[in-house]
């Protein structure tokens, strides 16, 4: 087949979701010529999105189609992997920000120092981050204000220092959140309105009137929800320096004779192969697909996959299972309206930092959330059929609430993403195979926290609670991290503190792949802040004519 070759550009960004949209904005605003390649479509939010539960939640309208883009999963290396739609993050311009809930908390300083704090934990591969909270603080602020969010300054007793408050105030609490706040107050726990990637006032001219409750897993037809589709992508396009190419599936990163990355090969929507050359290649596909692309990009120099001299590409994968308790409340009491609001309402950081008396290390954000819409509302153990089913829906649909935890799973060397030896996608490429077995600490954290959440729910008035514990990881949060960890030692990490590959210095990874540990919060604010930080660095390097070392010495002075 004839491979076409458009003009080379300064930067090619692979994947235009949360991190890719951020890189596109920062780099194009700095004057670099950027091409963004996204394998999904470029949708118009106003025309294409609405509150259709069946379409989004059951028929996967914007999720990867399992026949075309399958994945496989197994618990451990001695098992045969099975087809399983593990961590089905949406594929379209905007990526996971299109239908996320938008939990937007900052991590805590302890998240960057898990190894220093806990030393060697058997079976785990803990590592400190080469950067710390202070390195990211200015970028948290930039993302919070430019991307837009809501929150209440000073409400979270455990939050690390912030240089600015929130651009917009929180949404009024839901009825179920009020139960949670009051229960926490009685128990002496600090609950606060979780920062959310949505705006409640017309920040940057945005339209804030999506109060349909169709929020998590739905595209938003307004611009109330913060998505890169409706913010950073149009801002990048407005510079005239950014060219967005949707429906373009990248299948290889190419290397020049000098050992540097010189571009990528992709298949466009009409099936044509294109070689886009670029001075810098940035991978922003999410930690599963980024690892897969590196492993697919084999050459004489990198027979085990690009930038993989450490053998760590794909390893130390963490996925943050969402575990929770559901509280059932008496149907004679005030309804909780579990489909109202913007999915999450109140949260607490009380169980975030390590307290070894709990029997596990680490922890994470706990939050009260919607049970959501009628077809799929969260009632674990729902009777399958008959009057028991009908009664359960009728009695509890308006009288249940979820109290969940974003489970900080420990990294393990053998938990990994690699190429499936037999299953291929619709383009003939080996698919990602996920191998993940929970660590004993993950299981202990789940048990302890799910029971603690049940206790809070009982205090809130629940007459019964349904626990949902971690048994095996299902990828139900679509949080993906660790598969190209950052660090200073090239034998112990894949990328450096600027997220440039140790082996190929003009190849960057700016998504969650670079997280050495998974943190106790939803990852996207941290992913975007880090992508912004590194993109500024890339622009700096470019301005100095591409001399990496020069720029690196002028970089971060914290924890490096």
């Amino acid at each position, binding site marked *: 087949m004839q491979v076409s070759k458009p003009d080379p550009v300064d930067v090619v960004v692979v994947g235009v979701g949360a991190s890719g949209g951020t890189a596109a904005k920062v780099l194009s605003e700095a004057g670099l010529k950027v091409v963004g390649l996204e394998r999904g479509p470029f949708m118009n939010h106003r025309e294409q999105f609405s509150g259709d539960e069946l379409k989004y939640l059951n028929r996967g309208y914007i999720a990867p189609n399992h026949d075309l883009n399958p994945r496989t999963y197994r618990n451990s290396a001695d098992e045969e992997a099975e087809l399983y739609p593990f961590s089905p993050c949406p*594929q379209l311009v905007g990526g996971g920000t299109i239908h996320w809930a938008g939990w937007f908390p900052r991590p805590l300083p302890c998240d960057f120092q898990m190894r220093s704090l806990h030393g060697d934990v058997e079976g785990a591969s803990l590592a400190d981050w080469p950067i710390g909270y202070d390195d990211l603080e200015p970028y948290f602020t930039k993302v919070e204000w430019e991307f837009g969010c809501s929150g209440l300054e000073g409400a979270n007793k455990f939050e690390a220092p912030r240089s600015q408050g929130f651009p917009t105030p929180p949404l009024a609490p839901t009825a179920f959140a009020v139960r949670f706040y009051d229960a926490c107050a009685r128990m002496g726990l600090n609950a606060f309105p979780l920062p959310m990637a949505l705006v409640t006032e017309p920040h940057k001219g945005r339209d804030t009137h999506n109060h349909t409750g169709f929020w998590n897993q739905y595209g938003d037809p307004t611009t109330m929800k913060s998505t890169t589709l409706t913010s950073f992508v149009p801002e990048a396009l407005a510079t005239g320096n950014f060219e967005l190419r949707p429906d373009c599936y990248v299948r290889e990163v190419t290397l020049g004779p000098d050992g540097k990355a010189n571009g990528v090969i992709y298949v466009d929507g009409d099936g044509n192969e294109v070689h886009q050359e670029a001075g810098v290649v940035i991978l922003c596909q999410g930690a599963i697909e980024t690892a897969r692309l590196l492993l697919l990009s084999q050459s004489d120099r990198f027979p085990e996959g690009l930038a993989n001299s450490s053998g760590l590409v794909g390893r130390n994968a963490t996925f943050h299972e969402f575990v929770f308790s559901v509280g059932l409340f008496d149907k004679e009491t005030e309804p909780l309206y579990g489909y109202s609001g913007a999915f999450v309402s109140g949260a607490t950081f009380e169980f975030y930092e390590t307290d070894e008396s709990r029997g596990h290390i680490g922890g994470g954000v706990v939050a009260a959330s919607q049970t959501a819409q009628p077809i799929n509302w969260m009632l674990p153990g729902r009777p399958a059929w008959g009057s028991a089913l009908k009664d359960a829906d009728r009695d509890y649909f308006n009288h249940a609430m979820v109290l969940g935890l974003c489970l900080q799973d420990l990294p393990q060397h053998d938990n990994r993403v690699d190429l499936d030896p037999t299953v291929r996608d619709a383009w003939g490429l080996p698919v990602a195979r996920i191998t993940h077995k929970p660590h004993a600490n993950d299981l202990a954290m789940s048990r302890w926290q799910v029971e603690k959440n049940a206790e809070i729910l009982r205090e809130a008035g629940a007459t019964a609670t349904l626990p949902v514990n971690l048994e095996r990881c299902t990828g139900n949060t679509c949080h993906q991290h660790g598969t190209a960890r950052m660090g200073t030692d090239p034998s112990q990490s894949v990328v450096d503190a600027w997220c440039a590959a140790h082996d190929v210095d003009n190849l960057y990874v700016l998504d969650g792949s670079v997280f050495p540990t998974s943190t106790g919060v939803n990852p996207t604010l941290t992913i975007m802040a880090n992508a912004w930080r590194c993109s500024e660095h890339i622009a700096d390097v470019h301005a100095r004519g591409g001399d990496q070392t020069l720029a690196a010495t002028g970089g971060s002075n914290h924890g490096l």
Partner: protein
Amino acid sequence: MACRSHWEVVPEARLDLDSDEPTFFDRHEWETIEAATARIIPTDHDPGAREAKVVRFIDRYLSSVDHVYASADGAGFLRLDGIMADAWAGHLDRMRQVYRDGVRTLDELAGDHHGQPFAALSDEQQDAVLERLSGADRPVPITSALAGGHAYGASLQSDLGLDFFPALCLHTRQGFYGDPVYGGNHEQVGWQVIGFPGPPSLAATQTCTYSVYHLLVADRDWADLVPHVREQALAKDPA
């Protein structure tokens, strides 16, 4: 590529969505599936799957790839093409076989144990057949089965790879509670049964003229909900 930003929309009028004529099932299959859905969500003092026209929902779904995704405003359905249409066509082919075989199994079990086709049996007999089919007793009320923790699967509840009975249960829920544009939840009876104040139309969720904002609690102060806010304010300004 796979999913497109703009699919052609087949207007609802051309699909004749109000019709109760089977488009995939034959009469017997229709009656059998209708009877089975009516045991999954039975009619009591409230409407059940029969009144919600769940069988029509399932029949439409199985009929063609033109009923997979409603357009955002519900004025029609997206006409999938290319590999996306092929993928759905393959999936629906498998599902159709699951249903054809499923109806046969229901009738066989009904014939073997009660001497008549499934649709002709009493409610009690039909339940007995479903117990055999599912290999378990009929479910007990949720409050008497609270013990165990249940793994909650992937965030997408798809029918991928499901056998007949679990597929039928899932599709019955979908037809009872999904937007009426898909042929079930007739006159929103499913929503009324559980007290979901759903939107009048998909269009109302697209323009966001539909709102549940009034269900939020607007009359409580943050300082009252979050004592820490008040404590901080007091620490700063004790007066």
